[in-house]
């Protein structure tokens, strides 16, 4: 056994039909709107055609967009703390390695003056 939709449910179906492009008459008939609620479908159609979505001022859109871009870019390392740790560890290891190599090379290479004497 199916229960008949309430008046509020039927009106909502009619509005859904209006928003999808149906005429008020078709929307009301499809949703089985009774005589008492027919004027509500007419009001709904007036609202649909009259209430416009305002357009935002371009300057405001740009300002908020810039603020959001800044907020999205700044906390990169904070949103990925693991990356910060890995980057730091790799950077430190590279630094230690390069320093160690430089020290090792300097101990093996003869000084410039001694090198010139050997060449004579």
């Amino acid at each position, binding site marked *: 056994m199916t229960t008949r939709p309430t008046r509020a*449910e039927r009106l909502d179906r009619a509005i859904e039909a209006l928003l999808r492009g149906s005429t008020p008459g078709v929307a009301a008939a499809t949703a089985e709107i009774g005589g008492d609620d027919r004027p509500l479908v007419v009001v709904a159609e007036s609202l649909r055609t*009259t*209430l416009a979505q305002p357009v935002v001022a371009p300057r405001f859109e740009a300002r908020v967009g810039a603020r959001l871009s800044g907020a999205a870019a700044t906390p990169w390392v904070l949103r990925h703390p693991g990356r910060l740790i890995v980057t730091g560890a790799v950077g430190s290891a590279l630094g230690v390695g390069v320093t160690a190599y430089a020290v090792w090379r300097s101990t093996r290479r003869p000084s410039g003056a001694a090198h010139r004497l050997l060449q004579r």
Partner: protein
Amino acid sequence: MTAQPGPAPGTARDADLPDVLAAQRDHAAFGTLYRRYLDGVYGYCFYLLGDHHDAEDVTERTFVAALAAIDAFRDEGATFRAWLFRIAHNQLANALRARGRHRSTSLDAMAELSAGDDPALLAGRAEEGRRLRGALGRLADDRRQVIVLRFVDGLSAREIGAVLGRSEGAVRVLQHRALRQMADLLET
């Protein structure tokens, strides 16, 4: 009018989900969602507050809060736009509280927004628009919220329920009462 009906309950996926997932991976991708919903959120705020500057302020705070919380969004029934408008709704509640009173909003500033860009339509519907806005401005906040979310932003009853924290059935009843009141106001 740019409003589009939301997905039918239980029959369609949230169309914003791919962009939401992209924004969760990289916050820079939030710009797509921002551009998509800026007008809608602003319209909701403007029709409730009746003031351009207040609407801009609440809209900005809504998107900043949404970006900060985007990682917490989960695809668990409510659509992204319902989630976003819920944030706007909370920010609006704060703004209305800050005003210290829930007055009947003057919607005079909306005259310029109505009837689209067609001059003939503007002329023909000027009086109807004025009367409609007058009636809308006399509705209680919760009824006006339902009307604006439904007819300006195109949210479904289910999505509006998620925004207002009410059941889908309660939203339909609220919508029915709001339209009944508007019909009565327009008759007098």
